[in-house]
């Protein structure tokens, strides 16, 4: 349905290029379940975090020099001589951490409320692709300042590919552009670090197209049944997202202005030196769970396979969890296992940051085992044996008790087959 615009220029443009109709349709009247809680803020926050990273990153690239002899010094020049360079760089540096915090919360929200289930499987899988792209981007970005952790992190992670039988060594040489992590590696990482965020934008667009096909899932996990269940996106969720953004920015600013190196590794303020290996090579915190899985397997190839496997299971999650009930609220046993998984991932994060010795190794093996057991065993079995609680008939029923009308906010039902 074409919206009516008062401005004649807008009408003229919209008649030929219906972008205003499109925006009205997708951002204004877009029907949304009325019961979304604050965990649903993290999707839009992730989008804003991406924009913050793009703007700060493009600005940094104007001052950065991707060369092994100048990279470290050019970053220090940004910190000391470029106007507000310290602010731009601290925003970008901490923005990466906050982007991952927001996205990880977004993912766990999807896990708890079953947002990956039919008909949103592709929406979920596109999300996993975005996470993978984010990881690649973040990893290559961390290499750019060319500090000790940049260099040794790059060396360790690229060396993982040498575990591939037969062609492994050739692949590593090809990735490096030489026989060690060196200037060609830094150059290509800079190039790809600049490219991948735009690929992420592309996948985010697909993620949104898939989202708007059926609209948001909701805490009850039941579909929208009638106009009473839904409210237009604007102004209800625009203002709620704006408030959430405010809270996010307060926390983000607190770190950027008062503890900018909180998430950082002091060793990365030492220029890269191929002759001196740091005592402990630790990746950024957001990689620690995967790093823990990698190290918990005694075999190199096995470790690499399990690490990638930990993300691969997310791809097939919609077919592992066959329970017809989406929301964890109505799945008494699933709920318990969900929180065990949360604790398990926190434990993996902890073990990933510890040296691979003694008790930490045993702990990380148990945590790794449980991670896979959860997805490959617990979820499929729960789908069979768990008795879910009674689902509400509709979204408005439990909220309003008697199903009272919501005339002011109601809109027409979403046309799902447009």
């Amino acid at each position: 349905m074409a919206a009516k615009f008062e401005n004649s220029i807008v009408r003229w443009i919209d008649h030929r290029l219906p972008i205003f109709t499109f925006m009205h349709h997708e951002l204004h009247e877009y029907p949304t379940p009325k019961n979304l809680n604050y965990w649903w803020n993290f999707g839009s926050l992730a989008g804003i975090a991406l924009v913050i990273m793009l703007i700060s990153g493009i600005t940094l690239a104007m001052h950065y020099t991707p060369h092994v002899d100048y990279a470290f010094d050019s970053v220090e020049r940004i910190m000391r001589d470029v106007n507000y360079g310290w602010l731009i760089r601290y925003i970008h540096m901490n923005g990466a951490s906050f982007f991952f915090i927001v996205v990880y919360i977004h993912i766990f929200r999807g896990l708890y409320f079953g947002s990956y289930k039919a008909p949103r499987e592709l929406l979920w899988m596109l999300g996993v692709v975005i996470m993978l792209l984010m990881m690649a981007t973040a990893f290559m970005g961390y290499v750019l300042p060319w500090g000790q952790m940049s260099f040794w992190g790059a060396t360790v992670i690229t060396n993982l590919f040498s575990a591939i039988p037969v062609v492994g060594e050739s692949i590593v040489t090809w990735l490096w552009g030489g026989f060690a992590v060196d200037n060609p590696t830094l150059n290509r990482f800079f190039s790809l670090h600049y490219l991948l965020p735009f690929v992420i934008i592309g996948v985010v667009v697909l993620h949104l197209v898939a989202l708007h096909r059926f609209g948001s899932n909701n805490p009850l996990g039941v579909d929208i049944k009638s106009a009473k269940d839904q409210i237009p996106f604007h102004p209800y969720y625009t203002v709620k997202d704006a408030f959430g953004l405010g809270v996010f920015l307060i926390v983000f600013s607190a770190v950027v202005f008062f503890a900018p190196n909180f998430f950082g590794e002091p060793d990365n303020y030492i220029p890269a030196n191929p002759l001196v290996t740091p005592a402990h090579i630790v990746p950024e915190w957001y990689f620690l769970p995967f790093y823990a899985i990698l190290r918990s397997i005694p075999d190199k190839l096995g470790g690499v396979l399990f690490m990638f496997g930990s993300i691969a299971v997310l791809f097939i999650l919609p077919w592992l969890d066959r329970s017809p009930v989406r929301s964890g609220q109505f799945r008494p046993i699933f709920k318990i296992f969900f929180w065990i998984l949360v604790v398990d991932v926190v434990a993996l994060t902890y073990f990933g940051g510890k040296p691979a010795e003694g008790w930490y190794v045993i702990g990380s093996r148990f945590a790794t085992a449980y991670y896979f057991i959860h997805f490959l065993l617990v979820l499929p079995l729960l789908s069979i044996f768990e008795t879910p609680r009674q689902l509400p008939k509709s979204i408005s029923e439990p909220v309003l008790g008697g199903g009272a009308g919501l005339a002011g906010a109601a809109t027409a039902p979403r046309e799902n087959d447009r």
Partner: protein
Amino acid sequence: MIARIKTLAATALVASALAGPALAAGEVEIPKQDWSFSGVFGTFDRASLQRGFQVYQNVCASCHALKHVAYRNLVQLGYNEDEIKAIAAEKEVRDGPNDEGEMFNRPAKPSDRFVSPFANDEAARASNGGALPPDLSLIVDARVGGANYLYAVLTGYKDAPADVKIPDGMYYNASFTGSQIAMPPPLFPDGVTYGDNTPATIAQQAKDVSTFLAWASEPNLEQSKRTGVMVILFLLVFTGLLYATKRKIWASVH
């Protein structure tokens, strides 16, 4: 009020789980000091900065470079333009080529970076028994524990316990990882004479030079904190208004 904390706790327990600064078994405890620049409203104590700069110039600068800091940056320490010109002019820099194509030496200018004591790392090693004195521009950011660590090392020289054998050219330092350090004890009581008559104890010199080097690592710390206070105050008000707006708009839904 010196709180004894493990180096681990320097970044707080959450950070260790998240950021994971890996620490080997047997690393030393770094006591926490009171710094003028810590806390939300912290600023660098200017007198301490100038004393610390004096310690750096008279003691550290003979071996340690400070190559990311320019003489002009000393304006933040409270020196005026003429003083900075005079400080810079004490050093010579290689410049050129001139119109005849020759390289030449000239006195350093405020726009120059701090002149390094050695031409290159190899020269630095050759003069220091094989050990490389690190550049100090980022030393506070580059060490777990930051300024506390620096202070601990500078005041950590002690006689080695009887059962510890220290090789020639090495010194015992309780706060240094492995307890052996190649740097000879740099500070002595009254090793410098402070212009403001502050008694130049080892602890005082260590405190001052650590403050100076904290500034060298993060010269924008004061501006950052000042800006941060205003940004967060604004955001608190703005977010409060957004919350009120949200409540009003949603009133008809709840």
